[in-house]
């Protein structure tokens, strides 16, 4: 229940008079205030600054420090005020929370100081209102990252016993861990560079000897280049095998991009070894050598920026796709137009539409080689339009890609998003819990309230109209545990139940019972008197789990088991038992079988840790009696 709305509770209760003529059942007794206090001002002295507010304002949130009796610990007798030795600036926003129901986060405030104050006053940060929540979360994340970075710098933790394999893998992944790893890192880097340079230099024409024409160096110094190639490939092979050996998950390693690049880099050499120097396949062999250029991608292990570039391109796939698509569209359009425009002119290079593609691409990217030029006037006009539009179309998606790159470079975007989603889910879950807390609190108190009603039941024979006068004292006892506001709200909901002759139920239990009513043909009867006969409806979990303990001596273990089951169940399905107690005129047949059940039920309480397992949420004689089977007077 929100704060300001608590002030409207009297109105809601008064409006309940509208249900009274319609109801067929008597209404429950209203909770009374024991000592009806007039609303008074209380003074909160926070480090010298005095805040004043109504007591009712603070009572709106009974689960915080100021709303509960915890504040009595801070009461100063002489000055008749509550003194808190905390920051008065932050206290301002905390007090405003009570007044308006919204918690705001002041931007100038340090995030950890604010968190501490919230924790002190018992307020969960999740209820910060939406206007300030984003800012709060951002600041908190920054802070956490900063702390984590500091920790990582200090983290030279040596895990004691890593196997040789794990050490090797760690050395491969993170070269800064040991000297050997660093050496290995630089050696492989050097050899990649050497290999790439060799490939390049191979094709340069070396100085011509007088008797021979210009030849590329590769053909002149074949053996030298072959030796260099062999050495590099051997190093790469050894490295690949070592990585394969050290990988924690070999299957995953083989599938990873880097290992595919490694394989593609060294494969041409081996294929070349295997194949004979046959004329037919030498053409294919030459193409294979092209793949040696992939060795340059091995550098991406050595460069973080290269990896980020690759990742950016992958993540901007949609923008790149859009770019490609729009370019294709424009190329086709303009190529067609140019072709038909230039059709008339003689000796035109625009022989077909695909031939015009080349012109369009060169013009749109503003390259303008000049090998194909329009000659007609129409062709020139369309050509100029083509080049202008090319600039626009290409310029549009590029900033998006650029901003993507910079964003990814500065934060670890993917991990953040996942973390944020989890956090958002957790926040919504917590808020949902606190909101449904009100409805489940009602159900919870019903269970406890049942204690009192049935207490009175066993003293006198059950009648259709139970006089509620005797309930009042027990009701008084109960209201101590929850605030007056809550008890009044629960009384209101109780009146509604009586008016409609139906009861509120927990959602999970509702779904359960909904399934079970279909299955319930006849209730499960237990053989002997003292066994646990449990009702079919709404007790499906119990019915499944409860064993048939035939004798009372085993009842204690059954008691414990039942109490264990109760704890697991959480909210035990109290509604069934209550329904049997409230004899309804329209449910006689069901009543009989259920009453048969309840009479043989063994009582056990879902144990809150403080109390002993006695009494129960169902029928019960009185709390002190343990496993006596009490025949409820039905």
């Amino acid at each position, binding site marked *: 229940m929100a704060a300001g709305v608590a002030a409207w509770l009297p109105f809601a209760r008064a409006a309940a008079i509208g249900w009274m003529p319609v*109801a067929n059942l008597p209404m429950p007794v209203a909770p009374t205030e024991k000592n009806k206090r007039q609303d008074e001002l209380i003074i909160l002295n926070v480090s010298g600054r005095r805040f004043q507010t109504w007591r009712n304002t603070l009572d709106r949130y009974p689960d915080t420090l100021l709303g509960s009796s915890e504040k009595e610990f801070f009461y100063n007798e002489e000055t008749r005020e509550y003194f808190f030795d905390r920051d008065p600036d932050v206290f301002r926003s905390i007090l405003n929370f009570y007044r308006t129901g919204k918690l705001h986060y002041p931007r100038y405030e340090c995030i950890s100081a604010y968190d501490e104050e919230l924790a002190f006053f018992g307020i969960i940060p999740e209820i910060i209102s939406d206007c300030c929540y984003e800012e709060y979360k951002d600041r908190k994340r920054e802070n956490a990252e900063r702390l984590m970075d500091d920790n990582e710098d200090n983290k030279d933790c040596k895990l004691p016993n890593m196997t040789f394999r794990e050490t090797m893998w760690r050395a491969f992944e993170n070269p800064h861990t040991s000297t050997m790893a660093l050496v290995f890192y630089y050696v492989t880097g050097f050899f990649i560079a050497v290999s790439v340079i060799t490939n390049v230099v191979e094709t340069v024409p070396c100085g011509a000897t007088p008797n021979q024409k210009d030849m590329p160096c590769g053909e002149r110094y074949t053996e030298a280049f072959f030796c260099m190639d062999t050495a590099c490939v051997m190093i790469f092979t050894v490295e690949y095998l070592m990585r394969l050996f050290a990988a924690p998950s070999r299957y995953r390693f083989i599938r990873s991009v880097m290992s595919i690049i490694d394989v593609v880099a060294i494969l041409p050499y081996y294929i070349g070894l295997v194949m004979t120097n046959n004329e037919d396949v030498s053409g294919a062999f030459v193409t294979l050598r092209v793949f040696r250029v992939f060795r340059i991608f091995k550098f991406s292990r050595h460069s973080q920026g290269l990896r980020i570039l690759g990742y950016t391109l992958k993540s901007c796939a949609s923008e790149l796709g859009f770019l490609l698509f729009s370019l294709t569209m424009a190329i086709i359009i303009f190529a067609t137009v140019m072709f038909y425009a230039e059709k008339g002119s003689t000796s035109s290079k625009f022989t077909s539409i695909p031939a015009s593609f080349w012109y369009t691409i060169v013009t749109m990217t503003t390259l303008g080689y000049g090998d194909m030029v329009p000659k007609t006037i129409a062709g020139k006009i369309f050509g100029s339009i083509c080049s202008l539009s090319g600039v626009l179309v290409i310029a549009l998606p590029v900033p998006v890609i650029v901003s993507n790159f910079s964003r990814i470079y500065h934060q670890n975007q993917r991990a953040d998003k996942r973390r944020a989603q989890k956090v958002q889910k957790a926040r919504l879950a917590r808020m949902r819990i606190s909101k449904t807390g009100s409805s489940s609190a009602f159900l919870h108190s019903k269970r406890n309230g049942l204690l009192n009603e049935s207490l009175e039941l066993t003293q006198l024979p059950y009648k259709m109209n139970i006089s509620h006068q005797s309930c009042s004292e027990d009701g008084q006892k109960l209201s101590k545990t929850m605030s007056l506001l809550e008890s009044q709200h629960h009384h209101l909901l109780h009146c509604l139940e009586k008016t409609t002759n139906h009861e509120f139920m927990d959602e999970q239990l509702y779904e359960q019972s909904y399934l079970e009513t279909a299955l319930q043909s006849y209730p499960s009867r237990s053989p002997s008197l003292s066994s646990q006969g449990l009702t079919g409806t709404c007790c499906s979990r119990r019915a499944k789990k409860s064993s048939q303990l035939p004798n009372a001596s085993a009842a204690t273990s059954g008691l414990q088991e039942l109490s264990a089951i109760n704890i697991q169940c959480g909210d035990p399905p109290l509604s069934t038992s209550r329904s049997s107690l409230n004899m309804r005129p329209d449910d006689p047949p069901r009543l009989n079988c259920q009453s048969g059940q309840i009479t043989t039920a063994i009582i056990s309480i879902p144990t809150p840790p403080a109390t002993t397992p006695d009494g129960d949420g169902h029928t019960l004689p009185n709390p002190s009696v343990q496993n006596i089977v009490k025949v409820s007077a039905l």
Partner: protein
Amino acid sequence: MGALMVIFSVQPKQRRKRQDSVEDELELSAVRHRPEGLEQLEAQTRFSRKELQILYRGFKNECPSGVVNEDTFKDIYSQFFPQGDASTYAHFLFNAFDTDHNGSVSFEDFVMGLSILLRGSVQEKLNWAFNLYDINKDGYITKEEMLDIMKAIYDMMGKCTYPILKEETPRQHVEIFFQKMDKNKDGVVTIDEFIDCCQNDENIMRSMQLFENVI
């Protein structure tokens, strides 16, 4: 072409300004509502000065503008019934409180209604209840009106009830109600029938006294 674009962009702004000014006026007039003086209200209702002060503080907190419109009313009332849908019943309640039918409940309306409900005689309370049920305020409660009210009440329970809410439950309840109230079996309940019947029913009498000490 540039001039054309400029002209087009200027036009909507002027239109918007005219609309805004009309809305602003409405809002200003809404903000300015203040209740009558404390003495007057004290005379008209049965609340003491202090009680009126407490009531007004709560009222103003939730509705700073001084009046409640139907949406806010529904919103506030729904917060008390988290499991069901309280908007239909809140609509009927709103109509019952808004005695001058101007679409908003001011503090005077609010406090008059509460005065009847909490401090009025049984006759007045029953009168109020009759007024609530009589949706079209013609002096008769028909079965359709009662069915609407009943459905609204059952809606507040929500879906997860025990026993499961069936379609015909409100209708059955209305039948029971009419059997009890409609003495001359003419299909409608008049105010006299209603008050007579309620005064003879012990349960109803007792529950009417339930909320005596709410404030």
